[in-house]
């Protein structure tokens, strides 16, 4: 079980809300956490149970389709663990920003495309029965091709950032796991010696 705990390197020990933006918010909530209060996870509409010492992951976000994580901040969080948690929060926030904006743009441009094509065909957005009029897949293909080529550069940049975040987080997780393993072994050694 200790091994499992060690490998679960992502876990922090005190509840820390997902703060997507300001450092002031996170420092404020950090202070709140130190005071023993539950920092605000109200932004996400969920508060993990107080006895839980692990992170909690939620349903996919409406806009970005990514699952938000509420990180647990342990009372004696080491510097390394804090760096890991902050890296994960930063990656989460950056991913959330990118995908929410991207998906919103996709939906909007898709609507505009459908509208312009329907208008060109002389049709309304909704037909007689009140159903939303759609274009066939072949007609939409032009839009998909266009959208992909327009956003290719943005994706290349995002890919680079995502890979950097991913490697950094995994490396930090490895370091934290190693540190905890050593701590546990030292603790065992001390118990054996006593």
């Amino acid at each position, binding site marked *: 079980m200790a091994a*499992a705990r060690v*490998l*679960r*390197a*992502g*876990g922090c020990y005190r509840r820390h809300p997902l703060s997507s933006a300001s450092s002031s918010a996170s420092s404020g909530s950090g202070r709140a956490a130190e005071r023993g209060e539950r920092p605000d996870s109200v932004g996400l*509409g*969920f508060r*993990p149970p107080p006895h*839980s010492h*692990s*992170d*909690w*992951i*939620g*349903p*996919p976000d409406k806009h*970005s*389709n*990514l*699952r938000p*994580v*509420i990180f647990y901040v342990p009372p004696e969080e080491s510097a390394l663990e804090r760096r890991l948690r902050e890296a994960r929060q930063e990656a989460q926030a950056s*991913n959330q920003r990118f*995908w929410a904006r*991207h*998906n919103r743009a*996709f939906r909007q441009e898709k609507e505009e495309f459908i509208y312009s094509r329907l208008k060109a065909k002389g049709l309304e957005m909704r037909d007689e029965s009140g159903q939303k009029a759609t274009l066939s*897949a*072949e007609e*939409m*293909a032009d*839009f*998909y*091709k266009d*959208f*992909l*080529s327009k*956003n*290719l550069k943005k*994706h*290349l940049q*995002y*890919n680079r950032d*995502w*890979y950097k975040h*991913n490697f950094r*987080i*995994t490396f930090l*997780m*490895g370091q934290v*796991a190693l540190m905890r393993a050593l701590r546990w072994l030292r603790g065992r050694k001390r118990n054996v010696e006593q």
Partner: protein
Amino acid sequence: MSAARSCRPPRALAAGLFVWRLRSTGARQMPCRFVHLYHVASSKLITFQYCNFLKRMYVTQCNKDLSQRAKPKSDSIVSPFHELQQLDQEKKVVHKISSASPVPQSWSEMSSRNELRKIKSAAETEDSVIPGGAESKEDRQWKEMKLRLDDLPGILARLSKIKLTALVVSTASTGFAMAPVPFELTCFLLASLGTGLASCAANSINQFFEVPFDSNMNRTKNRPLVRGQISPLLAVCFAACCGIPGVALLTLGVNPLTGALGAFNIFLYTCCYTPLKRMSIANTWVGAVVGAIPPIMGWTAATGSLDAGALLLGGILYSWQFPHFNALSWGLREDYSRGGYCMMSVTHPGLCRRVALRHCLALIGLSAVAPVLNITTWTFPIISLPINLYISYLGFRFYRDADRSSSRKLFFCSLWHLPLLLLVMFTCKKSVLEKEDKGELRGGSHEMAMEIRLP
């Protein structure tokens, strides 16, 4: 949303049947051969979902267009009794409506809808009163990120795309079986195990790289890393624990050539194909090579050398990838476009269909070359001609019509075409004994073959 989308696992080492480009690779598990047959039987439904032993999923039909989206069963902690209760209430409502009579129809419909809504909202608020927990519906969707050891096998199976891995191993086994040497069981088992481990490693690393993209595509949004069931560190450790022993097993237990091919395939898949998917359409060709290597590995495991027969088998798998994947990707253009994947079906649709047709025809040619290389008898091209012609015909229809139905037909055909072709090839294999009789094999070669295999 193509029905196929939900069933196609991303293309991995497996030559196969699955292109997982679809990051449409949702809980993309490639159906096993048994499921293939089942597939063919009920081609309109994604039946493999029902055979999914790794996770309970419900297939729902949406928008009446026969596309299916797998809806994961909500792992709610509310007792099943509660669900039953809710159902009963809804049923009661239905009865109530039918008995209410002489009112104008539209009004009664409205009132029935309102009643249904009221009952549903009442049932939802009742959720909090039910002894399962005072949590709202949304709260129940929040999960603790704690690894439970009993869930681990299932999670790792999904992480390694176990069904796809099984397909990869079966293509490698076919390569081994087709090699013109006496069958050696230990070598066969070692080669299969090593290939399977290498495939698991490659699939895990692929999922590790693609978390946010998988979240955004319907086919792949229920993968373990996306759902937070496992940490990225654990995924990488698992990949290392599979890949290193797998390649070591192939190198030391089989032969260095097979080990090198295995390592190269892992590299090609994780470091070339995966990033290339988001950069250029060349990823399709790289992925086809990834799929072609396992049978070559099987052959080299048996014979110890890379001969024309290995390359032919690899060539058949390589060619097969294109009609399979291109047809599949035709229905996933929206998800690819939004997810930022560079696929031919989105950027170069004409090329997509041309390449699919071209490679269907290439399969006919390659089947004809098999007897020339003494791998099979001449019965093979003759028996395989009908199935190759059929897939070429579907490829031509796809090329000409360029619509959803022709792409689906081509895709589903490719699912049974490959196993059948390989089976026919195996049954038409030129017997090793036949060769000995004809004096083509010299006496000592058998022992030599054994020497190559044993380290």
